[in-house]
């Protein structure tokens, strides 16, 4: 499995400390986001318990774990999408470039422009391909002329590897594309507002293997330009696309470290059991 992992730096000592959370130090590259002792409650029910993770700029970070363990919940904390769920309560500290994103002074609109999100099921708007991509730039006033907007649309589609397939039909409805194309459209849509971080919640779970391979390839290409966090229930996928992996279990972070270490030499019993398929 190790050969699947591309240039993960294994020279450094494992990021994991002996006792699972907290205190996690970054790997290589500058720190993009940090979280400290994050708890999330849905009403009375606790879904996340004291999670501390650092997200670095140059690595793709994967969240793995059995379903229902809180991966999506934790991911949604990073762009405050949990705000849209009335019963969700988030506590702890989460920063983006050192700024507390839950501080009253933080503007959620700005935050979400900086931290984009791609969902499990492709969700293009029932609008043209062009309008799907132009949606964010228009909201945030990123283009002052039609040419600028055309430009943003083209570069975003190119970065998402979709330009060649749709350049001659930008006015067609986004919902008419195939599932894989729709998901790349959603990635292009997120890229269009020039975010710093892109969160992906099981972006391939609704796609066939070929479309999945394309998305994984795309993630490789986007690495370094954006800090990428991906939730996946597919361990091979985590091994293929990420350099850092966090293993969640029942709302707690069990182990976080260099992907190759997690998969070849986990320090925690639970991680080993999960990786070797003993449960999950």
């Amino acid at each position: 499995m190790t050969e699947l992992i591309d240039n993960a730096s294994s020279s450094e000592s494992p990021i994991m400390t002996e006792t699972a959370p907290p205190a996690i130090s970054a790997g290589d590259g500058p720190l993009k986001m940090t979280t400290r002792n994050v708890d999330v409650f849905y009403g009375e029910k606790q879904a996340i318990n004291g999670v501390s993770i650092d997200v670095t700029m140059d690595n793709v970070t994967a969240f793995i774990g059995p379903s229902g363990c809180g991966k999506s919940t934790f991911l949604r904390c990073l762009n405050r999408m949990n705000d849209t769920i009335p019963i969700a309560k988030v506590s702890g500290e989460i920063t983006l470039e050192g700024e507390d994103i839950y501080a009253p002074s933080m503007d959620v609109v700005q935050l979400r422009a900086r931290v984009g999100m791609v969902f499990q099921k492709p969700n293009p708007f029932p609008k043209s391909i062009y309008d799907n991509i132009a949606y964010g730039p228009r909201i945030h006033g990123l283009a002052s002329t039609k040419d600028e907007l055309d430009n943003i649309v083209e570069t975003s589609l190119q970065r998402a590897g979709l330009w060649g397939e749709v350049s001659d039909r930008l006015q067609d409805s986004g919902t008419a594309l195939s599932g894989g194309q729709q998901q790349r459209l959603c990635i292009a849509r997120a890229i269009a507002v020039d975010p710093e971080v892109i969160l992906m919640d099981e972006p391939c779970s609704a796609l066939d293997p070929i479309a999945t391979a394309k998305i994984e390839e795309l993630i490789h290409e986007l690495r370094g330009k954006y800090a990428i966090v991906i939730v996946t229930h597919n361990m091979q996928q985590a091994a293929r696309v990420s350099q850092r992996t966090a293993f969640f279990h029942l709302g707690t972070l069990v182990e976080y470290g260099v992907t190759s270490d997690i998969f070849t030499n986990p320090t925690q019993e639970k991680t080993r059991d999960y990786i070797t398929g003993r449960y999950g």
Partner: protein
Amino acid sequence: MTGSILFLLIIVLGGIAWFFGRVKARGFSATNTKRGAVHSLPTYHGWYVALWAIGPALLFLIVWNIASPALITDAALASPAAEQLPSDQFARGAILAEARSIASGQQVRAFNPLSQSMVEPYRTAISYYQMIGMVAALLLVFACGVFAWLRLKPELRARTKIERITMMTLLLASLIATITTVGIFASLIFESARFFSMVSPIDFLFGTEWNPKAVAGPRGETGFGAIPLFWGTVFIGAIIAMIVAIPLGLMSAIYLTQYAAPGFRAWMKPILEVLAGVPTVVYGYFAALTVAPALRDFAVSIGISGASSESALAAGVVMGIMIIPFVSSMADDSIAAVPSAMRDGSLAMGATKSETIKKVLIPAALPGVVGGVLLAVSRAIGETMIVVMAAGLAANMTANPFSSVTTVTTQIVQLLTGDQEFDSPKTLAAFALGLVLFIVTLLLNLIALRVVKKYREAYE
């Protein structure tokens, strides 16, 4: 013996037939214990006999009730007393009708002595034919009941037959509504055809002069130009009412689905729905007594001439208010049907709530909303009470909302109330107006349902 007692008796006999059928079936069920040897449970055999006993007899009674009056009249006319009757068809008919209602006990005393003399022959004829009907019905009960009872045997597929009859009964029930509608439509067409034989359809549909009272003689009628009515209907129901109902309905739906706390929504929605149940005559009072005078005073104070105490605006506004719950609940449904993934996608792009509503939710929900609005329009143009009370009777072709206009429904009421002959063009015009209204609302409904269905499919 009266009809209802006979009916009860037949039902009781049916019960007895059920019992005997079941007893017989139990008998052979007990002896044929092999599985599948007896096709149906004893109850089904009971029902089989009971339905055979009751069904033909009841059918016969229905036919008999339709046929016997003519036979009774013939018998009465054959009596010696009938010789004194006048030969004039009309006078004769009146006398016979009077005699018949005295004979059947609906009337006590005759105004015409000739009627009195016909009462006795009538009485005899009625009791004679009643007796025949009763005896025949009871004979049918016995004959058919015994016939069915004799046919009972283990392999009789009684269950299948009962199942089929149940299905037919349900089918019949569902057909009644449809057939009634078809019947209404046919009678509208029939009466309208009579109207159009007197007034040209072109004059009716495109004429601009509506004044049925001034109509003089047969043929060459004028004053049946319905354009002012169509205009008034559209002006009130499709323009003014919708200017009120669409924005308010849509905004309240948006508030309720997107902003309102669940608790607030939980009691606000039922209140809106109650609004839809207020009788329209109550809205009519409100329009005529409160809104119309207030609007007139307002118009006068800002110097609009021709302001009337009956105005298109008053009727339209109140009708719009009446329609709000309708629009808002349709809009509510279609907004709620937009997948939440759309909303999340937009919010995750950094759009605010209102941007999300404006740019994603409403465009996505639009077909559903349009369907709702079309249904609302079709309701508004068929609405009668409010416009009768508040819009007036003057067939004006005006775009001034403060003046009085009239609508199709108002004029139908006008044409049909009071003493009317049923073959004058004036009365028949009501059917032609009704036909137009029927066709327009039917089309609106069809289009609306189609739009809504398309929209639903888009999110499957």
